[in-house]
């Protein structure tokens, strides 16, 4: 549309300026929205590729209702001081020889490196992370777990807990981990040490871990008593209890 003759029709000037402003604002908004849409489309390609894959156990690589991200998304929580010097991990409960290790002691225990996917209950998954740490099964063995223990409580800073059945927590990919893809965790992701229970929703992988407690009776944890599913199997979409 051509510009009106403002000398002849001065009363149109304000309306025209307003129209130009609205056009430019709409164009800017469309540009930003389009950028966001492109990001979504790119991310969807990763999700589609992951959905086409199968795990070794025959299940889909990506559980239902999940989309992939290439990084861990910060999800909040009440962090510890993140300090390796003050870090202590207590292994206790229904065990014959409870013990406590500091950070240096943890690194002296038998170490494993595992590739694992993780799945957040809010709908994102991060695939193929390489996690280094100590297996929970190794901690159970070292502490001499008693026969009656059937559950594991991961204890974390400020009283956070997450309960996991012993059979799940002692799988070979379940760790007390301090390194992802060769790097230490950022504080927001649980530094210095966090849990890793990759085949359950990620809230079970308690950040800022302080203890591993083996117990006979199940004790629902922080989120489990707030309406979240007690088991949290992503392939069964056990999000809420």
């Amino acid at each position: 549309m051509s510009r009106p003759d403002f000398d002849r029709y001065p009363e149109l000037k304000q309306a025209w300026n307003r129209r130009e402003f609205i056009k430019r604002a709409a164009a800017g908004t469309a540009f930003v929205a389009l950028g966001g849409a492109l990001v979504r489309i790119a991310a969807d390609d990763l999700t589609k590729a992951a959905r086409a894959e199968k795990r070794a156990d025959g299940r889909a690589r990506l559980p239902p209702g999940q989309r992939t991200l290439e990084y861990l998304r910060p999800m909040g929580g009440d962090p510890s001081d993140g300090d390796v010097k003050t870090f202590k991990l207590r292994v206790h409960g229904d065990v014959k020889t409870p013990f406590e290790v500091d950070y240096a002691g943890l690194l002296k225990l038998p170490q494993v490196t595992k590739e694992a996917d993780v799945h957040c209950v809010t709908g994102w998954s991060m695939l193929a992370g390489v996690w280094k740490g100590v297996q929970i099964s190794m901690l159970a063995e070292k502490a001499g777990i008693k026969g009656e223990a059937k559950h594991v409580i991961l204890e974390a800073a400020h009283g956070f807990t997450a309960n996991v059945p012993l059979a799940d927590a002692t799988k070979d990919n379940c760790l007390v981990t301090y390194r992802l893809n060769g790097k230490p965790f950022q504080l927001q992701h649980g530094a210095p040490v966090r849990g890793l229970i990759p085949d359950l929703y990620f809230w079970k992988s308690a950040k800022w871990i302080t203890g591993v407690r083996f117990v006979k009776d199940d004790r629902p944890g922080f989120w489990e008593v707030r309406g979240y599913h007690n088991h949290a199997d992503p392939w069964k979409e056990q999000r809420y209890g």
Partner: protein
Amino acid sequence: MVDRKRWRAWLRAIHRDVGYLAVGFTIIYAIGGIAMNHVDDWNYTYNSKERTLAIAPVTDDATDEQAAKLVADAAGKGRADDVFRAGDEVRLEYADGTKVTAIGAEVTVQEVKSRFFFRAVTWLHAAKGKQGWKYIADAYAVLLLYLAISGLFMIKGKLGLKWRGTLLVAIGVAVPVVYLYASGGPEAHADPKPRVSDVSS
């Protein structure tokens, strides 16, 4: 009988002054609201940066001081406030919260900076738990109601409620109503999903 012209002039004058009063509050609530709406996508309280560098690996026979200097120099940082070595790790900590970790031939520099502005506006936005601010926020809400209602009657004629105003008000009311209807409303979303920021994963 009140002079209609004079009545509308008063309405406009008060609307103008209330508008001036509301500017600061509106900026706080609008920016804080946008920041909190997108909590899934960013951390509005802290900005975390991470970079990695390659170095010649620290040898086992290096003293703590030698190891710390090698890593600090590689990271372009000065003398660390604290040094910790365990296994194959050398960790340096600085008073500003920066953490530098060398693992073999790789150094990771993690910096965390507080987002002062966004922390402040989101803290103010969430009135819960702030006894005094709660009443100030209530007063602002009343001012907003005045702005909305007085705005309906400020201009008469075609540009007022008669035509343009009615259309725009109808659109403004229709958007939330249609969304409520289309989404099923709160009843359809009554699961116990908490705020994403509360989920520890």
